[in-house]
């Protein structure tokens, strides 16, 4: 178990190494190899679930010196928050690759190679305990996604891919500047070079510097989330990307932004994060994103673009929950990030399935699909209900927890959230109605229902939808400590003040707390 994180991290690359030796003409072998590698990546991450102890903080820590002269190290470790995202990544990475089986027919070797590289990059982002390593993986994700959109994308792929890269790159250089500023501040206080996040946390950052470092980080993460008004790359990228690319983009890549807020912005710069002005600005942008995203979704004629804008709206809930700065808001936000990964992943897969059969995503071209594709109809229905937050599915738990957190901070926030949820139900149900119900169009009558492989892609996600919806307790349990850490860091004494049980002070069943 000592190196389990490294094993999880590098399994996709190992698969890639095998893949490179298969001649590109042998497409069947390439597909099998890529799927096997992705499945292996998922399988090796499963032991994490059983070995993880929710009463401890960072676990499975690995640390090796890498570039001693600048204090960068190969330093991995996961807490409950990272655990959920790592599992989401390994699962959805596998499903995305599985879903490409028939959809991708050209340059397959390169296609799967980019997915596997990207998989390692995303896992690294969620595992890194060293800011430098974090940035490295953060950038590593960018290039494969660029190629995935630019080579296998739709007609405007070149434009969408470049836009995606330039937006993200501008954001990430600013974020990097923030990391460097903290690093330098740490050096001037302690006279040692270190990028370790726990070392950077010890740094006392002067107020004025904290302020601009916060905004540097903010821009980097806000572009990735994306928050309004930095979201304009997202609809383009989603619409042009191949299905599996969209799934990964929505389910995992966007979470890197919210992950950054929770891992860097809040714990490292607590004073700026709780500055009322900052909160107001960020909450304002989040609420605009919720409402704007929902209204934009209502207006879309393109199925995929609708789902893309719904992401903007859903991620608005996540950022609002984060900046409610209370346990309910943050825990709800994290859970909702996972939920969004599952439900939006499903919605993009749904679009991919009809697109593969009909080669159009125009909503008006469909209707009555339920009659000819009942299994597909059920899968889509579950995705829709999950995404709109219908009890007892997973989306409900996430949204209601965020709503609780928002309400504790401000009634107005909660009202906006409720409006957003209502609008969400409207555009999703309307979409369902327009595509699945009503009369069958002549052109669609020959469509086939899901085959076994496609059902296999949806099945695990459906299980998770019900699991989180009906029994969310273990999920909240692993999030208790990470959430409490963030809240206590930003608002020391919050739990005591509000007469809440502080999970950090609960008696520990096992000794040997790591770091």
């Amino acid at each position, binding site marked *: 178990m000592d190196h389990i994180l490294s094993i999880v991290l590098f399994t996709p690359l190992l698969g890639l190494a095998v893949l490179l030796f298969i001649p590109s003409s042998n497409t069947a072998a390439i597909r099998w190899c890529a799927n096997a590698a992705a499945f292996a990546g998922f399988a090796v991450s499963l032991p994490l679930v059983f070995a993880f102890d929710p009463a401890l903080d960072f676990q499975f820590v690995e640390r090796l010196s*890498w*570039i*001693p*002269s*600048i204090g960068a190290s190969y330093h991995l470790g996961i807490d409950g928050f990272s655990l959920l995202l790592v599992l989401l990544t390994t699962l959805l990475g596998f499903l995305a690759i599985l879903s490409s089986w028939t959809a991708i027919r050209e340059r397959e070797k390169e296609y799967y190679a980019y997915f596997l590289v990207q998989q390692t990059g995303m896992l690294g982002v969620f595992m890194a305990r060293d800011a430098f390593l974090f*940035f*490295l993986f953060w*950038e*590593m994700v*960018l*290039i494969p996604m*660029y*190629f995935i959109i*630019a*080579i296998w994308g739709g007609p405007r*792929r*070149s434009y969408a*891919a*470049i836009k995606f*890269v*330039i937006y993200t*790159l*501008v954001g990430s*250089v*600013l974020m*990097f*500047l923030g990391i*460097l*500023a903290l*690093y*330098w501040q740490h*050096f001037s206080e302690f006279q040692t070079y270190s990028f370790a996040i726990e070392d950077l946390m010890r740094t006392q950052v002067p107020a004025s510097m904290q302020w601009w470092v916060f905004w540097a980080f903010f821009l980097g993460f806000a572009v990735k989330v994306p928050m309004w008004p930095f979201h304009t790359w997202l609809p383009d990228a989603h619409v042009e990307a191949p299905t599996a690319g969209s799934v990964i983009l929505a389910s995992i890549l966007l979470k890197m932004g919210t992950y950054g807020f929770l891992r860097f912005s809040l714990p490292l710069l607590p004073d700026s994060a709780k500055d009322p002005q900052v909160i107001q600005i960020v909450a304002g942008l989040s609420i605009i994103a919720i409402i704007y995203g929902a209204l934009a979704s209502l207006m879309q004629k393109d199925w995929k673009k609708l789902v893309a804008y719904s992401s903007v709206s859903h991620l608005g809930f996540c950022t609002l929950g984060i900046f409610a700065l209370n346990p309910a808001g943050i825990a709800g936000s994290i859970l909702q990030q996972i939920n969004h990964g599952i439900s939006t992943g499903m919605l993009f897969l749904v679009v991919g399935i009809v697109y593969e059969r009909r080669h159009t995503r125009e909503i008006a071209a469909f209707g009555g699909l339920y009659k000819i594709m009942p299994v597909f109809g059920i899968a889509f229905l579950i995705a829709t209900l999950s995404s709109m937050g219908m009890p007892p599915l997973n989306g409900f738990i996430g949204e209601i927890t965020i709503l609780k957190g928002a309400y504790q901070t401000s009634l107005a926030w909660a009202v906006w959230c409720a409006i957003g949820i209502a609008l969400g139900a409207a555009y999703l149900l309307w979409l369902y109605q327009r595509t699945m119900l009503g009369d069958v169009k002549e052109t669609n009558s020959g469509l086939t229902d899901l085959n076994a492989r496609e059902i296999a892609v949806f099945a695990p996600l459906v299980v998770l939808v019900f699991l989180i919806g009906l029994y969310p307790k273990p999920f909240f349990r692993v999030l208790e400590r990470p959430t409490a850490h963030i809240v206590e860091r930003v608002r020391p004494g919050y739990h005591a003040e509000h007469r809440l049980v502080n999970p950090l002070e609960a008696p520990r069943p096992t000794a040997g707390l790591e770091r």
Partner: protein
Amino acid sequence: MLDSFIPSWAELLRFMPEIILSLVGSLLVMLEPVTGPKSKSMLGHVAIAGLIVALGATFVAHANPGAAFSSMIVVDGFATFFRVIVFTVGILTIFSSYQYLDREGSNRGEYYALILFSVVGQSVMVVANELIMIFIGLEISSIATYVLAGFLRDDKRNNESAIKYFLLGSFATGFLLYGIALIYGATGTTDLGEVRQAVLQSAEPPVLLLSVAAGLMFIGLGFKVSGAPFQMWTPDVYQGAPTPVTAFMSAGPKAAAFAIFLRIFVTVFESVGDRWEPLIWASALASMTIGNFAALQQKNFKRLLAYSSIAHAGYVLVALTARSEIGTASAMFYLAAYALMNMGAFAVIAHVAGKGETTVDVSDFAGLGAKQPVTAALLTIFMLSLIGVPLTGGFFGKFYIFKAALESKLLWLAILGLLNSAVAAYYYLRVLVVMYMEEPSARTENLEPMPMSLQAALWLPAAGVLFLGIFPSAVLEFASASARLLGQ
């Protein structure tokens, strides 16, 4: 008295790389008339062998550091670092020249000799510890390079390139010489160490005279490193010169010019640093901005890389503006990484260019990914490194530079520089788009397989770029240690 004119063995040892290269260069000139037209490549092999021996001699010299010839030259870590860069650049240039010269029907011995002489000049520049030696080195390097730029003498653009480079280069050298004269006037010496001592020890240093001298030298060196506002010649010269020579110019002479830039400005002019810092600050920002934004518009790949080289000069000037040991070390690291990635990128251009360089537009690279996947993959590495994507040398180069800038509280320069590097991603990525996503062009359709020599010119820098990107520690520590000694 006579003793001091007879160099000791140790002194000769410290100057051995230059001696070897001069002898091999002269040998090539003598061998040229007696070799048949088919075996000119042999002369290139001899030149490479000479450079490898010189590289070995560099490490031997490094084991015996110190001054030589009445401290006209000094072998320290800094000099060794840059010697390794310029010799490596020489080797890579020759590797990428064989095929090119054969195709143009100009495979002649003089070419290799001129490369060696130019390298000797650069090597003298980086070891020089005395202003006149610096000047001599610069002239040796420049004159050889002027000739190289016009080596295909029947080609119009070659002639234009050579003339432009020669005129502007001589003009710039004039400024540099004027600066040297003023320093001599102010302090009565041209030895860098003595100048520094004279400035530090005098109660009232001639600040005005030194500032003017710094300004003049900045103009002269600004031309050589193509920093704004003295960058105008770069695109035309880079576009017109034979591609391997362009590669050479963008890496070797530039690194050497930066070396003397660093040596002079961190030793002699450190005491008037407050005066020249704003100058270099502005030049760094202008170079980055002009280079990157102009590169966005380019269709010709060589011109694109010419503008990109202006931008990269801007990044190195950021490191200079930092005026710290870390700044110096980061500039050294960056120049090493830059030399490698640029040599690699130009080697691919030399391969695709075709006879008479008719196909050097970015669009001529269309479909390279499908036709020659390995070549395309290597070019991808160089492009990603030029962008500064992690795990490449270009990333660590930029990282160290902006780290140095932040530590010297150059916040705005760092912000604007980093934003600039995001803009740059656009034009580098466009090359990848064309290469991987478009249908093969007429040129890539009929591209000849890559000869061994050119493969070497690609694989070596690619390996170097990745090495610097994954294990930068050793090189960086060497650079830091050298920079520390330099400041003393």
